[in-house]
């Protein structure tokens, strides 16, 4: 069996990216939206790794970057969750459509 090439992986990551974007646009539940963001970030991670492995094997920036992205994603998620909890306190729901008070 042939082993996967760069483009396969890029394809997967791109798909992942757009799945994430789609989820972000369509999901009503804030937590789910957050998960979709995570998908996007992970697709980026895939990109980094792939590029690092196939294109620039001797430049390790990609790997490091991935590590940091994971860390940041965690931090972001933490803050977001906190905020969402707070929102739940005031709105008694975590449906994004209930938080559209400010507009125009």
């Amino acid at each position, binding site marked *: 069996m042939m082993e996967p090439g760069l483009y396969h992986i890029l394809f997967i990551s791109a798909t992942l990216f757009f799945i994430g*974007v789609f989820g*972000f*646009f*369509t999901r009503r539940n804030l937590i789910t*939206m957050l998960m979709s963001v995570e998908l996007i970030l992970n697709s980026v991670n895939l990109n980094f790794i792939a590029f690092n492995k196939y294109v620039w094997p001797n430049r390790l920036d990609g790997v490091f970057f991935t590590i940091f992205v994971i860390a940041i994603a965690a931090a972001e998620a933490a803050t977001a969750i906190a905020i969402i909890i707070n929102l739940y306190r005031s709105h008694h729901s975590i449906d*994004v*459509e209930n*938080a*559209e*008070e*400010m*507009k*125009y």
Partner: protein
Amino acid sequence: MPNTTYIALIPLLPLAGFLLLGIFGRTYFKNTSGMIGTSLLLASTLLSLYTAYGYFFDYGKVNGVYQKLVPLQITWLEFSKGVSIDMGIILDPISVMMLVVVTFISLMVHIYSLAYLKGEERFPTYYAFLGLFTFSMLGLVISSNIFQIYIFWELVGVSSFLLIGYYYDRPSAVAACKKAFIVTRFADAGFLIGILILSYYSGTLDFNTLIQKLTNPESLELKAAVTASFLGISALTWGLVLVFIGGAGKSAMFPLHIWLPDAMEGPTPVSALIHAATMVVAGVFLVARLFPIFALSAPAALELVGYVGAISALIAAVIACTQTDIKRVLAYSTMSQIGYMMFALGVSKYGGEDGLGYTASMFHLFTHAMFKALLFLGAGAVIHYIHSNEMKDMGGLRKYLPITHITFLIACLAIAGVPPFAGFFSKEEILLAAYHHNTGIYYLALITSGLTAFYMFRLYFSIFWNKPAQVHGEHHGEGGFAMMMPLVLLALGAAAAGFIPFGHFVSSDGNRLNSAFHLNFSIAPVALGLAGIFFAMWLYKKQNDRPDKIAASLNGLYKAAYRKFYIDELYLFVTKKILFNLVGRPAAWFDKNVVDGLVNATGNTTEYISETIKGLQSGKVQQYAMYFLVGVIGLAVLFIYIWKF
């Protein structure tokens, strides 16, 4: 020639009077203002007489020809090289003659007004305005620069405006003064453009240079001015015609005469001074001033002057026969007499015997000033006594106003051209000139002279004879010395002025002109005049119904004449309907709705757009992200595929 700068004082003294009385009059000189104004004017009258003497008999003549002297000239405002407004004094026969006339008549009026307007509230203001007027008129006659004459022209206009509006609380007076100012202003616009044309071609504004350049056939300026043409008429002719329009406006020539009758709203002495003797002849003076150019370079323009004069003379005479307000009658007669002067100039040529018309016109100006001022002052005395301008309130006054009666009679005879009174001589010369050069105008003039005699005596009889006087209550006599003295003096003038050998002093080219006197020629006019007089006597000496019968018999003409041939209505139509409704109102509307509307529209559209796109900010965070992605993709597509580098 001796130092003659003192002549500057002649206009400046009245000006001083104006400033003094105008600023401090109401507070300090409540009662003495009349004496102040009069004495100042007396001084300048004496000065001008002295000047006249000096000019005519001493230094004015150089080997038999009267010179144009310019004793004083100051650059007032320089536009560009050579083209500048100068304030100066020009001395030549006509200006000197006018100096005398203006100061003398004005002095008479000053004296007369002392009594006539006694106790008026705005007595000082009145004398201030008189001073202003006299200053401007004198400045006008001695102008050495065509723009200077325009300046004083305007000043004369405004002082007449102020004096007509003297009784400012009478709506009729207000309307009259506005009318007078606007009509003359309209004419002045023509004058201004005329000046611009002339000055452009001659490259100067100074009278002497101007005339010298535009009369000398060799000069390039003249060639340019004649060759350049618009609508087939040479630029020079255009210029002169436009200048003449200015003159016609001031001199109430047809069809710009409509302001003059209404101007009678002013105090009667003012009418005597401004609207009979001096200001209204300014137009004649202007044409005379530019006469060489008219005569030598633009005969066409001169012809126009002639016809306009003749027509005005006739029309005015006809209208005068039907008016019942005595001042209006006099006003129309003034217009008709000025018509005489105009066409006298029109039929004249430059120099020698052919220049008779010029001399005659000036002569008539001189004599007319005398008797017309006299007539007005006399009418003033009557009105002062009767407190009315209407003929129907008058009659049989000869017993009550003997002096007025006599002087008035003299004046009437003079204007009717009955020998040996002043009017006779000047009119004779005019008719003679017309007879020689333009028979058509001559006959018009002849008819007019007959009519003149008729309507003047119609006036005379219906004031002093006709029905017995209905004098009610209080008798304050004829108005005392201050009012009678001018009458008498002017009567003397009106009686005797004719015997001055005018041609010796005033002529088109400054040479001595011996006006021969032909008895056989003068039969016709005199006969006509007498006929007119007797007809008037037959109609108006005793109270009867003949006038009404005749009026009825030629009712259409009579009605038309009585309504002044509907010219006022025509003007009213043009101004109110056309200028106001068809130009002014649309302009205002356009500004309010279109121009301003556009400005507001921009504002409103902005508001509108901002209202319509507010949906962009939907408050949905997911939509925000979507727009975000759209932006990203849009930019990427734009710069990768469309906008290549």
